[in-house]
């Protein structure tokens, strides 16, 4: 019975010691990995003011929808040099995710989906000779039109899938890190 009392005492000690576990307030998590802002800048090769498309979602995966802006219209038949940047504006200063995409170019590809707005051509390659899409050229349709342009950043796509190198997302697989659809006008 003496052993039993010792045992109970030991148990009580263990329980009470571990009960004093920290009730410290956990640190807040600021999601550093999330992309909040996608910016596509189209600079006319002939010079002039660029057209800038922006999708900004400052609550990340939260309930608020992204805010989209289109700075202007494209000119029919005009050629543009395009660049895409990704930011995380939840971090301060804002985190430039574009560099990460560039460094891991073999694991990323950007797709441009539209119908009749003109032609998009990749202007950059990863180490394996597959397109990335951070840099591209765009030639606007010859006649005025309007429609939707969807820009999608895919993480870990199957870059050797059928037509993926030509910008067809159908067989790309992978997971979407950012997707934004803009209503644009060619005039």
């Amino acid at each position, binding site marked *: 019975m003496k052993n039993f009392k010792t045992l109970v005492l030991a148990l009580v000690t263990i329980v009470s010691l*571990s009960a004093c*576990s920290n009730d410290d307030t956990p640190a807040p998590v600021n999601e550093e990995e999330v992309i909040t802002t996608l910016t596509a800048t189209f600079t006319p090769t002939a010079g002039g003011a660029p057209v800038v498309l922006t999708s900004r979602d400052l*609550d990340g995966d*939260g309930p608020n929808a992204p805010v989209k802006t289109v700075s202007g219209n494209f000119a029919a038949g005009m050629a543009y040099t395009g660049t895409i940047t990704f930011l995380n504006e939840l971090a301060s200063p804002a985190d430039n995710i574009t560099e*990460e995409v560039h460094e891991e170019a073999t694991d990323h590809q950007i797709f441009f*989906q539209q*119908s009749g707005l003109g032609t998009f051509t990749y202007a950059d390659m990863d180490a394996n000779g597959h397109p990335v899409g951070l840099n591209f050229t765009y030639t606007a349709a010859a006649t005025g039109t309007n429609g939707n342009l969807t820009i*999608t950043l895919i993480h870990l796509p199957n870059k050797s899938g059928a037509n993926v190198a030509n910008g067809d997302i159908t067989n790309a697989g992978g997971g979407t*890190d950012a997707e934004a*659809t803009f209503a644009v006008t060619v005039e």
Partner: protein
Amino acid sequence: MRIYFTLLAVFLAGSWCAYSQVTLSGKVATTQNQPLDGAHIHIDNLHAMSLPDGLYSLPGIPAGSHRVVVSYIGYKSLDTVVDIYRNLVLDAVLNPESTQLQEVVLTETAQAKSTVHEDRLKAETIEKYSNTSLGDALKEIAGVSSLKTGSTIVKPVINGLHSSRVPVISNNVRLEDQQWGTEHAPNLDINSAGRVSVIKGAGALQYGGDAVGGLVLVEPVSVLKDTLFGRTILTADSNGRGGSVTSSLHQGAEKGWAWNASGTFKYMGDRETPDYVLSNTGNREANFASDVKYIGSNYNLQATYSFYNATIGIAEATHIGNVSDLVRAINNQEPSVIRPFTYKIGAPRQEVQHHLAKLNFNKDLADGATLALQYAFQLNRREEFDLRRGDYANIAALDLTLSTHSVNADWKKTANNATYKAGVSGSMQHNDASPATGIRPLIPNYDKLDAGVYGIYQYAFSSSLSGEAGVRYDFSRIDATKYYQKSRWDALGYNGVFDDIIIGDYSSQWLTNPKFTYHNVSASVGLRKDFGNSLTLLGNVSLAMRNPNPSELFSDGLHHSNATIELGDLRTQKEKALKFSATLLKTGSAFSFELTPYLNSINNFIYLSPTGVEYTIRGTFPVYKYMQTNALLAGADLHTDWNITSHLKHSLNAAYLHATNTLSSEPLIDMPPLNITNTLRYTLQNFHSLFAEVRSEAVFTQTRYPNNNFNADVPAGNELVPTLVNISTPPPGYQLLHFTTGAQFALGKTTAAINVSVNNIFNTAYRDYLNRQRLYTDEVGRNFQLQLKLNY
């Protein structure tokens, strides 16, 4: 001394002479004439083991007078001397061991019999699933199905319910391993189980009052005899190109020291469907369990420690970013990631460790009463790795550490026609969600305190009629610390309602301190009537109350493999279930059956319901919110055994469930469809216990499901197309055929058994409605398995 050597020489000579060898055979059964599966029969160095029908055969005995020992865990060994000069039949009837009964509360007693029916897995079945998991093995019980994530994460589903509604009691400790998660399989090694049983319904109040669906009881091997006994099982599989080894040693004792130790290693690579490799579906396990027990004259003291350590790869193709990816995955039929076979496990994967340490003390008090005291500590670490960018690739996306202390005191007394049981329990739990993940945690930090008290009274009105009534009270308190995005806080309608729990303002997030207190009462009453002719009827009514679990309260964010945003609700109320069930049992040497109809009415049933679509920069996501409704689950389970001849046996398992959301008059989601399993087994008892078994598993198409399909604008080809996202339609039914054959050999003191099996003989490609990955991949194809079992 010389005389012994002479005798030995005579015996040895005798054992070499075929004509002087005889066979002892017979049947091992309980006092209730229930056959005992896996009983040991020893004569000197010779061993045999009884089959599921209790029959055994021990050939090669030299003629003479022998000491025969028949033993079975939990029963008093039969130890006698028999003159064996020709083939002899010895039927053994074993009495339950009274000291074992203290721990196995639900085993029948001589006086008042329990009205709660327990479905037990055969020892052979547990061993058959040595290389898989508890969830896979439990599927062999009628009415138990499995909820899977891929092929290795398997959760038991009892009569349509799972996770928080089906507590797993491992070695008398309630397993606390983040069991709320549908993708979190029970963190225990099936090889450490000596006995696995299922109780359908909430009748077993000593384990808790919240088992809305039922209970899974896992008990370790316990050897009472004064012997050292060992077992090794080696398993090799063609699908996954790996295998496992498990070994255990047991030292039993009537008095003094007894101990058990066991270890398991598993190593499996990518699984394959009939048409492609399921990339990143390998898994590893390294488990260890041991206990040491001191048995005194009227008490015993035991210390136990077990460790479960698993790494589980999750098919890479199931990691998607948004609804567009989901639509592409559904339409493509084949997963987007198919690579050559590899053993390597990348991301996504789960790494889980579960430690369980406990001390228990059992004492026989005066007047036939017993007291059991137990303290247990569990530490569960769960890390889930996802496909992440840059520096985050090697940082877990979810990192939870759950520690639980629990104490139990259980008292039991049997007097005349009555059995009294009473007990108290308490537990303290702390969950720690690491902020180092860089992702807002799915489950916040919390402290939880539980206390419960119960009383159960069993009474035998006559030798054939017993009754049982029990009541339990539980107190529970959760104190959590959680950050909410302010936008989410407003969208959930918390603004102005829960302002009092805000304790800090961190720019875009509120820091909150939600606290919940619950008082629950659960109860059960039952009757058991034996009609003679081995026909027994058990009837039970039970009331259970289950508190909302952390995910139902706090979930808040993106679920990657489903492309859904899942939201908990602080307003979630507790669930109340009233279950009526009956079991009609018939045991006979030619035909036995067990029929269990039930009706489970659940008030405030918590379920995930689609509430709309949210747009983020990552794309479109359907939003699922935890809602409450009233649910009615009605169904029946049937099991039959038919000994067609002394060699041929047919078994049937069938289960049907009709589950309805009674407020919306819609079917409930994720309910198992009608399934029927037929097994035909041929046994040649006299020739190395040879058996061959064909099993047909038929799963019908689930035609009753809620339609949660939705439309989303998805870029297809080069345009945004409004597309119907078909996430609801269950896959078509399927039928699989499996084959197993095996035989036993005596190798000196060792009994060896070799089993060869083929699963999914026709390499059928199919998908299962209860697999969380059914939208992405087929189930695994054909598998050849070789298993070697050694008992020594």
